[in-house]
Each structure stands twice: as structure tokens, then as C-alpha cells.
């Protein structure tokens, strides 16, 4: 089967090569010399800052995106008129399928010196720096990944039987309580899927910190680009990449466990 061969040669094999390289050494001129050493892994603390930024901003970005997305998904699934629903939903998804590079660099305008800071100057707030700060990166993250978060939550909310809410209110439950005890638990699968998708993509993010972090706020992805394309230290770069994938897999597995427990042993908390 050609597809299986292709997937194997182009996916499984290269990933194995990364693991092999991570135990090697850097050649004097850049590149790689075969070896079996843990030196690259021992050297990981040299890139601690990148891991720290990623491990703070990726979960934070996921949470903020979730908080921003939930009300919109709720509105689309429950409050919006059915006539407008499809159109509004498409409007959420469209940006996600267009180039994230272009959508992200637009924020250089908005957050840059002539954008929001200039508007704020008219209000008497001077010398506010937005671009090249963790805040800018966070805005970029929420902007870029909001659609991916809205969609799964919408799907889980849309499926749910609204008569349950009527039942709750008939039984004398105030709306906020019905939300906490009925709507929210039923939407957990969507929340889990959305958060996981966003989190996975954020762990490998390069563009948003590169464009909006200005070299000050960098992720593991930026360290990888530096190691592979600038300093050409492939052995160390491979160790960083392997560590990134391991950290990601561990976090995702733990998160899935947690979600499965909170949603009462349901099996549908998954990607597909």
C-alpha cells in the first residue's frame, strides 16, 4: 500500500532519526556525528527559558482562549436564532483556515507604536509598550486559536437536549445552577477536545512568539528554529525536540485522565 509506505518513510522513520540524533554529538562545522551519549539531554537546562515560557504561556493561552470561546459557543448553540446559526458558525471557522502568518502579523499594526498605544496616548496613558511583550504573544495566541476552541464546544452544546434545562427550572433550580449542574458537565467533552487541540498546537508554536514576542518572549519552537537553522546544532536540537514531544504527550495523557474522571468515566473525551 503506497500510502502506508509513505507514512512510514516520511513520518515514522524521520521521528526515529530525531531520537537517534538526540544521542549523538555536534560536528565541528555544524551538523551531526554519530555517538551514544546523554550529553545533549544533560545540556537541556541551557534552553530552560524557552521551556519555561512555553510551559507558562501555552496553558495560560489555552485557558484564556477557553474562557473567551465558551460564551460564544454557548451563544451559537443555544441562544442564536437557527436561521443565523450556520452563517455565524462559518464566520468563526473561516479565519482558522486562512494563513495564520498573515492574521498574526496584522497584530504588529494593532499593538505596535502607531496602533493601540497611540490611541491610549490621546487618553493620557503614555509610554505603554504592548508589542514584544508576553501580553502581545497571549493576544496572538487567543486570536489564532479561538476558532479551534469554539467549534468542539459548540458541537457538544448543540447535541444536548434543552428539555433538560426546562426540567431543571421546573424543579425550581435557578438558571445559574442549571448551568453549573446540567449544561457545563455535558459540555466537558467539547471543552476537553478543544483545550487539547489548542494546547498541542501551542506547545510547538513558533510564529506567534517570533512575530509578536520580538525575540524577548520565545517558545521551544523558536529555540528549535535557532538550533537547526542558525547554529546548526542538530544533536542538541533533536534532544530539545524529543523532550518537547515527551512533555507534550505526558501533559496530554494526564489531562485526558483528569477529564475522564471529572466527566464520569465517559469514553467520548477524545480527539476523534
Amino acid at each position, binding site marked *: 500500500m503506497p500510502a*502506508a509506505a509513505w*507514512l512510514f518513510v*516520511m513520518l515514522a522513520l*524521520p*521521528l526515529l532519526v530525531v531520537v537517534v540524533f538526540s544521542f549523538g554529538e555536534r560536528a565541528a562545522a555544524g551538523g551531526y556525528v554519530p555517538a551514544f551519549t546523554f550529553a545533549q539531554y544533560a545540556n537541556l537546562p541551557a534552553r530552560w527559558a524557552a521551556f519555561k515560557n512555553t510551559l507558562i504561556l501555552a496553558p495560560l493561552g489555552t485557558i484564556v482562549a477557553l474562557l473567551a470561546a465558551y460564551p460564544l459557543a454557548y*451563544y451559537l448553540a443555544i441562544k442564536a436564532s437557527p436561521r443565523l446559526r450556520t452563517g455565524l458558525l462559518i464566520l468563526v471557522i473561516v479565519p482558522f483556515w*486562512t494563513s495564520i502568518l498573515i492574521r498574526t502579523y496584522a497584530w504588529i499594526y494593532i499593538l505596535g507604536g502607531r496602533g493601540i498605544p497611540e490611541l491610549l496616548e490621546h487618553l493620557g496613558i503614555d509610554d505603554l509598550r504592548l508589542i514584544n511583550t508576553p501580553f502581545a504573544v497571549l493576544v496572538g495566541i487567543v486570536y489564532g486559536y479561538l476558532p479551534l476552541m469554539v467549534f468542539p464546544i459548540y458541537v457538544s452544546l448543540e447535541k444536548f437536549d434543552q428539555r433538560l434545562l426546562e426540567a431543571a427550572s421546573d424543579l425550581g433550580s435557578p438558571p445559574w445552577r442549571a448551568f453549573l449542574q446540567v449544561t457545563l458537565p455535558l459540555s466537558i467533552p467539547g471543552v476537553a477536545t478543544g483545550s487539547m487541540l489548542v494546547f498541542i498546537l501551542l506547545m510547538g508554536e513558533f510564529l506567534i512568539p517570533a512575530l509578536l514576542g520580538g525575540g524577548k518572549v520565545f517558545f521551544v519552537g523558536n529555540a528549535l*528554529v535557532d538550533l537547526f537553522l542558525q547554529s546548526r546544532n542538530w544533536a542538541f536540537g533533536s534532544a530539545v525536540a524529543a523532550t518537547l514531544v515527551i512533555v507534550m504527550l505526558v501533559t496530554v495523557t494526564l489531562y485526558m485522565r483528569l477529564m475522564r474522571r471529572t466527566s464520569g468515566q465517559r469514553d467520548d473525551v477524545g480527539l476523534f
Partner: protein
Amino acid sequence: MRLYAAAVYIFLYAPIAIIVLFSFNAGRHASDFQGFSAQWYGRALSNPFVVDALTTSLIVAATTAILASLFGTMAALALQQVRGPVRAVFDAMIYVAIMVPGIVIGIATLIALVTAFKFLNPLLEAVWPFEGATAPRLNMGYLSLIAAHTMFTMALVIVIVRARLAGMDRSLIEASADLYATPWATFRQITLPQISPAILAGFLLSFTFSFDDFIIAFFVAGSQTTLPIYIFSSIRRGVTPEINAIGTMVLAVSLVLLVVSQVMLRKRTNGK
């Protein structure tokens, strides 16, 4: 709630609107709007670097989309008959292709191909049968771009076509077999018409993905420049109205392809 939804839509679309607006800027400075003009579109399209990058992107995206939809469809069809461990391994590979961050896929492809070429090029030279003509050298460029993009998008096509196959009415195939149709005739007259919208949608999404991809291409493009790579390196030197014009065109291309693919996927409901 409605107000919040409206605010989110503004948040999603304002940056895109700003890029489109500034691409029509008559002035030469990126952040000073001085009236409407389409001059930057003309400049962008007569810039040889832009045209080169655009050509590369189009060739890579078209080849990727053809290969991915062909092999992806074949794989999805073959997977119907496969059960047991082979199926599990294949599913796991598709899962990995979608889960592993793009940046790691880029890195893995880069070092695997460079290593393979180092080994293959002397071999190719040794067995090259034509005297006088030098053997072709395998290099990072079109080949690696297409290989990496196909790997990634093929997984996408498999998922889409498989979903369509799962929703197909099996009794039609059985009826066709009962009427003594050969398997090929059944495939051409029953299966293919039913899954063709999904294949086309997969084709268009693969094209869009490949055309918009930055991070994988950044690693494996070698001496080639795709349009996103050109845009990224230009932004580093400062945002110009020309980049905005290019960005607007890229957004328009993905938008058109997205609309067509959605129309195709939706066709199944009236096709029955």
C-alpha cells in the same frame, strides 16, 4: 451575550480588515493611510521574488494536493478491508501525523532527508549509467517540500474520505454485486460518485494547507522560497503595503478554496 458575540466577531475580523485596508494604501508608509490605490498589487505582481515564491508555492501545493488525495483515497478504501494489528498501526500513524507539532515534523523531515541524501547521492553517482552526463543530485527543495506536505495532508484526506465511506449505504454495493457488476464497475458507478465530493474537499483542503504552511516549509524548503517564507522574511525587515497586498491575495485564495470545498462536502445531502 449577543454583545459579547459581536465583540468576538470584531476581534476575529478587525485584523484581517486592517490588512486589506492598508493593502490599498496610496502612501508608501505601512501605517499612514493616505487614500485608496491599487498600485501595491501591481508592484507585488511585478516583483520577481514574489512571482518566484508564488510559482514555487503553487507547484508544491498542486502536486501535494494531487498526491495526497490520490494516496489518501486509496488508503481510506484499503482500510475498509483491513482489520487487526495492521489497522491499529495505520490508525496510530494517522493519529501521530495529526498530533505531532508541525515544527517537529519539519525538523524530522529535514534531518532524515539530509541524511538520506548524503547516503544516496554517492550511490546514485556510482550507478549512473550515462557517461558524460553528470548524475542528478538529490537536494532539499521541491522534492522535500512535496514529500513533507503530502505526508501531513494525506492523513487529512484519509480522515475525510473515511468519514464519508462510513456514512455510505452498503446495500447499494451489495445490490450492484448481486446484479453481476464487476468490482471495478461497482467502484466506478457506486462508490466513486458517492465519495467524490469528499475527495475533492480533501484535495482543496490539502492545497490550502500546503499553500499556507510556513513552519514545515521553513525547515525543508532548502534553497527554495515559498510565498509564506517570503512574507515571513519580509515582515522581519518591516511591514510594507506590498506585503499587505500579497497577504490580501493569499487570504482571498484560501477563502475561495474553503468555500468551494465546503460546497462540495455539503453536496452529499442533496446528492441522495
